[in-house]
């Protein structure tokens, strides 16, 4: 199919060969699972089990709260041992509510909802409800609840469902392996998503550096007229949803427009598989594909890891780390973040666990900016990192906001090419967080202002009523006096 060019981007060394030819291996059951109540973007789920409860594999542990949220299910059968604050798999190392599940070793399933043997014959609404029940979230890393996306898209005319198999981050091979080993499930999932939102066709975008996956997917897609495979150029970050849509349709989507508004729905290939499994087998999302790699890992592998497994167990399964390993990163090396320790669990958004050595990281000290403009050339969003970073460095966040720093999605291309090794994307991450907090603070101030005004009005009204009552009492007293005199 015809492809369109996307501006900017970089061509990092892909380093996928360590795991790309190895089959996905299922991770054996471990004694304890840790299930944070917040593994998705949106509101935290709320526990619906109690300490001491025995739960079956796939049983609901925490229910979604509010409009954008997702449930959490038990990855194996066992006993709920604690519901408490524990270190989250988050670079801050801050605590988050977590359910601790002790496995009973039986790994026996709880009662699951009806498996739709032919999901295409049931009402699309039931499919969307099933996806919501299953707690499927975007498995590319952003972990946005899939059901919310389906619901929003079902109210709009969707012309095309795009499955994202670009996997442009170095090292990661999870999507690649899923497409090679479960091509049928991925394609069925894509078709089912299209069915659930009433879209006529499915396009699956795969970067050209995955020729095996492209060949297998093309073969599997032959049976369907409305499924097409697009081989994308290997260009980071073409796997970003907005840029993928641009490469496939030529439409450039502004940061403040939903992709669904241009008639496209994007889901990761792994998400499509999870959607299919939730409908066809009635299975909730309780495991995901994780690439365990990096120069510091002894035996890199792609694993099918139950959600909640401690990162340590994955590393041990891959032969442990060698002495060169310096930093554990979750996600890819460009957009991933460091982990506070290796006791934290794998969550729904964990696409990779990388043990990076010092040669794989850039520790060179920052030097003054040369104003070479390479960051401007590579920015896929058309921003000006050189200007924004110097404004942020001088705490001029308002000006940086005017230069649209909030449109930056932290792909890190600017930091990657900077010849002065300036922490550009790190400045933008800081600025975005700070601006979000300021907006939140402003919202809070407005609320307080309204409340203060309401209280003032209420007090004034009370005062007025009191005066009125006093006047009335005075009048009544005067009338009584008059009567007395008359008597």
């Amino acid at each position, binding site marked *: 199919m015809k492809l369109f060019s996307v501006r900017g981007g970089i061509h990092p060394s892909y380093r996928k060969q360590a795991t790309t030819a190895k089959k996905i291996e299922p991770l054996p059951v471990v004694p304890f699972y840790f299930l944070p109540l917040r593994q998705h973007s949106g509101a935290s789920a709320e526990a619906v089990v109690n300490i001491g409860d025995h739960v079956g594999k796939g049983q609901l542990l925490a229910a979604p709260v509010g409009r954008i949220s997702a449930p959490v299910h038990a990855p194996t059968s066992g006993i709920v041992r604690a519901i408490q604050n524990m270190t989250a798999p988050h670079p801050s190392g*801050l605590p988050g509510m977590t359910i601790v599940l002790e496995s009973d070793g039986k790994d026996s399933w709880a009662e699951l909802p009806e498996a739709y043997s032919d999901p295409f014959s049931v009402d699309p609404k039931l499919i969307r409800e099933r996806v919501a029940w299953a707690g499927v979230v975007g498995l590319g890393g952003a972990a946005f609840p899939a059901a919310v996306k389906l619901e929003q898209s079902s109210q709009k005319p969707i012309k095309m469902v795009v499955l994202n198999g670009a996997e442009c981050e170095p090292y990661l091979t999870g999507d690649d392996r899923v497409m090679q080993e479960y091509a049928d499930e991925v394609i069925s999932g894509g078709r089912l998503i299209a069915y659930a939102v009433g879209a006529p066709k499915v396009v699956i975008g795969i970067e050209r550096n995955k020729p095996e996956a492209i060949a297998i997917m093309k073969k599997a897609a032959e049976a369907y007229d409305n499924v097409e495979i697009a081989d994308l150029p290997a260009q980071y970050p073409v796997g970003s949803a907005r840029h993928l849509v641009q490469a496939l349709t030529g439409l450039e989507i502004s940061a403040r427009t939903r992709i669904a508004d241009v008639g496209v729905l994007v889901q990761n290939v792994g998400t499509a598989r999870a959607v299919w499994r939730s409908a066809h087998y009635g299975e909730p999302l309780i495991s995901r594909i994780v690439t365990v790699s990096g120069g510091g890992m002894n035996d890199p592998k792609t694993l099918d890891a139950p959600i909640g497994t401690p990162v340590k167990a994955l590393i041990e399964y891959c032969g442990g780390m060698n002495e060169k390993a310096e930093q554990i990163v979750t996600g890819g090396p460009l957009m991933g973040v460091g982990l506070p320790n290796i006791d934290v669990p794998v969550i729904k958004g964990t696409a990779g666990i990388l043990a990076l050595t010092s040669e794989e990281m850039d520790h060179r000290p920052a030097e003054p900016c040369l104003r070479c403009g390479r960051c401007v050339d590579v920015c896929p969003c058309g921003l000006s990192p050189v200007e924004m970073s110097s404004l942020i460095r001088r705490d001029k966040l308002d000006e940086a906001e005017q230069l649209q720093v909030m449109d930056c999605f932290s792909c890190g291309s600017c930091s990657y090419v900077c010849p002065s090794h300036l922490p550009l994307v790190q400045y933008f991450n800081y600025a975005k967080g700070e601006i979000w907090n300021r907006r939140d603070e402003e919202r809070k101030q407005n609320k307080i202002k309204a409340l203060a005004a309401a209280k003032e009005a209420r007090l004034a009204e009370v005062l007025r009523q009191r005066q009125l009552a006093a006047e009335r009492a005075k009048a009544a007293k005067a009338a009584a006096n008059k009567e007395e005199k008359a008597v």
Partner: protein
Amino acid sequence: MLIAIISLSVMGLALGLMLGLSSKLLRVEEDPIEGQLQALLPGSQCGQCGYVGCSQYAAALAHDGAPVTQCTPGGKSVAEALAKALGVSLDLSDAEDIGPKTALIHEDLCIGCTACIRDCSSDAIIGAARQVHTVIGDVCHGCSKCETACPTGAIEMVPVAVTLDNWHWDKPNLAIQDSLANPAFAAQALANRITEESDGGQGKAYKASLEKEAKEEAIG
């Protein structure tokens, strides 16, 4: 020639008349800056600034040159906004930014007297007589009026906790542009960074020259 003179003078007179009339008719009674400043203030009339309420502080800012750093609940961001609106420079070096705070009621000390509820300007405390009170964190802006009102000292002002919801990355710590003033870039510091392992013995001469420079600096 005559036509030009006449038409221009008629136009001049007409426009002058219009300007004169509009200055009379569209006269603004209140100083606009005062309202503008008041809109920037939290508006909870807590009185921490030393004035009766926010409007009085706004008036003092506009006319009497009151310092912009007086608003406690507003903190650094309000001070910055006020300074910007007034066009004054803001020196926060001596003002310690304690960060946002929120009231916390120690339940074992609360006697349920409702004194704090009456004083709270944003209705952020709920409770009833002889019932333990509690604070709604999302609408408390840390003016600490309740802390003063509490007869048993049950209210403490605590810093707003950093959670997974409001955490963000720190600002990268970079001193390159100020390298001359930065001790990390002093000759001795640079020399210390050159070790046998880092350069395989190649940087010995450079290290020696840096050390010599550092000695000269120390003498000079």
